[in-house]
C-alpha cells in the first residue's frame, strides 16, 4: 500500500475501520445492494444537480459520464476485493476532486446521503438485525473512503503548495501554529 494511503488509514480507530467482516457482509449482500444501484445513482446526482454550488462543478452534458463513474465505483466496491489497489484508488479520487474543485464539504455531505439511502433500503428489505449489521458495514466503508478522499485532498494540496511555493507541510503547520491561538480567541469571542 502506498505511504499516503497507509498514513491516512492508520488514523482511524481499528474498531471503526472497515474490517474483513464488513467486506464479507457487503459481498454477501452484493446482489441486493446492486438492485439499489439505479436509485443510488439517480438520487446522488439529483441532489448535486438541484444545488447551485454542486451543479456548478459539472460541465454541460457531463451528467451521464459522471453517473457512469459512480456506477463503476459502486460495482467495483461491491465486487471487491478491498485490497491495496482499491484503497489507493480512493486516495487518488481526492486528487481528481482537487482538479475538478469538488471540495470536502461536498464529499462529506454526499456520503451522508449515500449512507442514509443504503440504510433506509436495508431496513426496508432485511430483518432488523441483518439490516443493522449492513448499516454498520456501510458506515465503516464510509469512514475509510471519506478519510482517504478528504485527507488526500488536503495532503495533496500541501504537496502542490510545496511544489509551487516551496512551503513544506511541516512549515505550513508551523505557520498555522503561529496564528491558531489568535484565531481561536477571535472565534470564541464572536
Amino acid at each position: 500500500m502506498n505511504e499516503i494511503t497507509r498514513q491516512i488509514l492508520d488514523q482511524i480507530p481499528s474498531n471503526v475501520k472497515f474490517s474483513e467482516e464488513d467486506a464479507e457482509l457487503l459481498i454477501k449482500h452484493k446482489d441486493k445492494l446492486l438492485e439499489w444501484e439505479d436509485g443510488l445513482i439517480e438520487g446522488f446526482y439529483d441532489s448535486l444537480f438541484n444545488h447551485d454550488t454542486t451543479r456548478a462543478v459539472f460541465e454541460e452534458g457531463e451528467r451521464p459520464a459522471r453517473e457512469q463513474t459512480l456506477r463503476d465505483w459502486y460495482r467495483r466496491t461491491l465486487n471487491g476485493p478491498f485490497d491495496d489497489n482499491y484503497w489507493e484508488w480512493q486516495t487518488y479520487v481526492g486528487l481528481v476532486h482537487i482538479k475538478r474543485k469538488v471540495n470536502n464539504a461536498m464529499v462529506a455531505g454526499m456520503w451522508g446521503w449515500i449512507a442514509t439511502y443504503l440504510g433506509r433500503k436495508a431496513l426496508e428489505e432485511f430483518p432488523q438485525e441483518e439490516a443493522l449489521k449492513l448499516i454498520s458495514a456501510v458506515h465503516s466503508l464510509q469512514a475509510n473512503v471519506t478519510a482517504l478522499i478528504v485527507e488526500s485532498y488536503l495532503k495533496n494540496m500541501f504537496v502542490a503548495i510545496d511544489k509551487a511555493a516551496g512551503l513544506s507541510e511541516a512549515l505550513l503547520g508551523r505557520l498555522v501554529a503561529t496564528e491558531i491561538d489568535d484565531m481561536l480567541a477571535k472565534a470564541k469571542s464572536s
Partner: protein
Amino acid sequence: MTKQEQLEKLIKELRTNVPDITGVMVASSDGLSIASDFPEEEGARIAAVGAAASGLGNRIAQNAALGAVSETMVKGTDGLLLIYMTGDEGVLAIRAPARGNLGLVRLEASAACEEVKKILG
C-alpha cells in the same frame, strides 16, 4: 559546547561586529526557531515566515531561471530582513535598519552562514 550554545555565541558575535543589526535568527527549514535574539513573541513568527520566504525565494529562482539562491531580502521603509539558506536544513535571518551599512551586514552574514552550516551540519 552544545550546538545551541555555539549558535548563541555566533549570534552575539554578529551583533558585536555589526551594531546596525537589530535581530538574528537561526531556524530550521520547516520554520522552528533554533537560536535567536529576537524578542520571544516575535521569534516564533519570524522563524516561520523567514523559512517560508526562503522556500518561496527558492521556487521563484527555479521558475525564473535565476540559478542558486544566495539571499532573499524583504525591504520595508523601516528596515530589512535578509534570509539565507544554511544548507538544506537551516535558515539564517538577519534584521537591519533600512539605511544601515548593508555591505558590512552582507559580508558578516555570509561568514555567519558558513559557520551556521558547520554547526548544524
